[in-house]
């Protein structure tokens, strides 16, 4: 499964939605995800792809990993996965 679909599946599970209902432009708030939900998504991403995501719930918008939309999360994970293979 492509990284994008796996990330969407992870987000969907946390948001209690079907993957088909997740839009790439959705923000965490659109999906009803609070900071704990985000922390669980980050953990699931790390476990799935065996990467380390630089995420601090105190400053969710700081750092290199952009969690502002589903698309940005997908892009961030794709970058981490590429870096890990390099």
């Amino acid at each position, binding site marked *: 499964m492509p990284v994008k679909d796996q990330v969407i599946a992870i987000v969907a599970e946390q948001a209690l939605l079907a993957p088909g209902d997740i839009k790439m432009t959705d923000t965490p708030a659109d999906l009803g995800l*609070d*900071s*704990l939900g985000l*922390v669980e998504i*980050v*953990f699931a991403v790390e476990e799935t792809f065996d990467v*380390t995501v630089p*995420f*601090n*719930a*105190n*400053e969710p918008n*700081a750092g290199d990993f952009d969690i502002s939309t589903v698309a940005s999360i997908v892009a961030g994970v794709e970058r981490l996965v590429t870096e890990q293979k390099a």
Partner: protein
Amino acid sequence: MRRVVITGSGTINPLGHSVPATLEAMREGRCGIGPLDIRDVDRLQIQIGGQVRDYDETTHFNRQQISLYDRFTQFTLLSAREAVAQSGLNFSGELADRSGVVFGTSGGGLNTQDENYRAVYEEGKNRVHPFIVPKLMNNAAASHVSMEFNLRGPSFTVATACASSNHAMGQAFSMVRSGMADVMLTGGSEAMLCFGGIKAWEGLRVMSRDGCRPFSATRNGMVQGEGAGVFVFEDRDHAIARGADILCEVAGFAMSSDASDIVTPSKQGAARAIAGALKDARMNGEEVGYINAHGTGTAANDKTECAAVADVFGAHADRLMISSTKSMHGHLIGGTGAVELLACIMALRDGIIAPTIGYEEPDPECALNVVPNVAREAKVGAVLSNAFAFGGFNAVLALRASH
């Protein structure tokens, strides 16, 4: 109802191995947080903490004692020795039966658990030392203090995460006030700075990698600490009759439950506990000159706490001082309220307000006088100490200068 006073205090924490050393560090705004020196630290994302430095258990305890005393119990016993010595009390006869112990801790003997899980899981050992259970149990510290000082009255341990110490001291206060006991040793202890203890906290993604900066716009999380604080709470008439030096009066206590979220704090829950402590102490909000904040340095706590203080105190919120000494000693979790009570006593007795160090930039959501970076001299007659725990349990103590 009886009045309750504090006649002894003791501590060991990242700022010092005694009360005078700790108060000196708080006056000077010294930071006790630094690189962690523990096993497997290279496998941790978070590599800083407020550790008790220059500590060698063998200078205080013999081999047999060490086989029974986890680090959190050791910290408690050392603090209790200092507190009891200051109080001048000797527990025998009827006083022993009317005196007890109530301490707070969150992790109890977590180092003992960590070491022994490692032994059986990682190292594949099939045998552990016979005293692991009495060493790791949460009430071990209270039990050993009761034995060392012959305290034979009501004794137990409270575990409410970050509010454990304040809940414990609130119980001790209520027990002396109601007449259930004449003297209570109380406070709390924590020693969680081991691989497993930090790894668990790391998972929550609320820890800072570079420092604890409560109320500062640049804050990025909490930093764990370790240590203990122990106090002698005594019936005021009993203390006066024996000519004891009274450090201050414990005037009131209140607790509340958010009943909302397991980790996200609630302004209403905090405000109800603060207002409740004032009411219990029959204290006018205007009397309060200083609040020792819970002030963890997380985004969520600090703004919620400031909003709660503003709600309860109205215009007076801008006149009182509020500081977080966690900026210096870190978050001692179940022991934190006890070490922080020392800053409250310093304010009442010495007229010195401990600072919030590491303060870099104002946050409009924390727009109170947080005593940034440098201690302040001020005469205050009444203070509060806040503690707001994961699980939504809040506990606030109100203290007055003794007259």
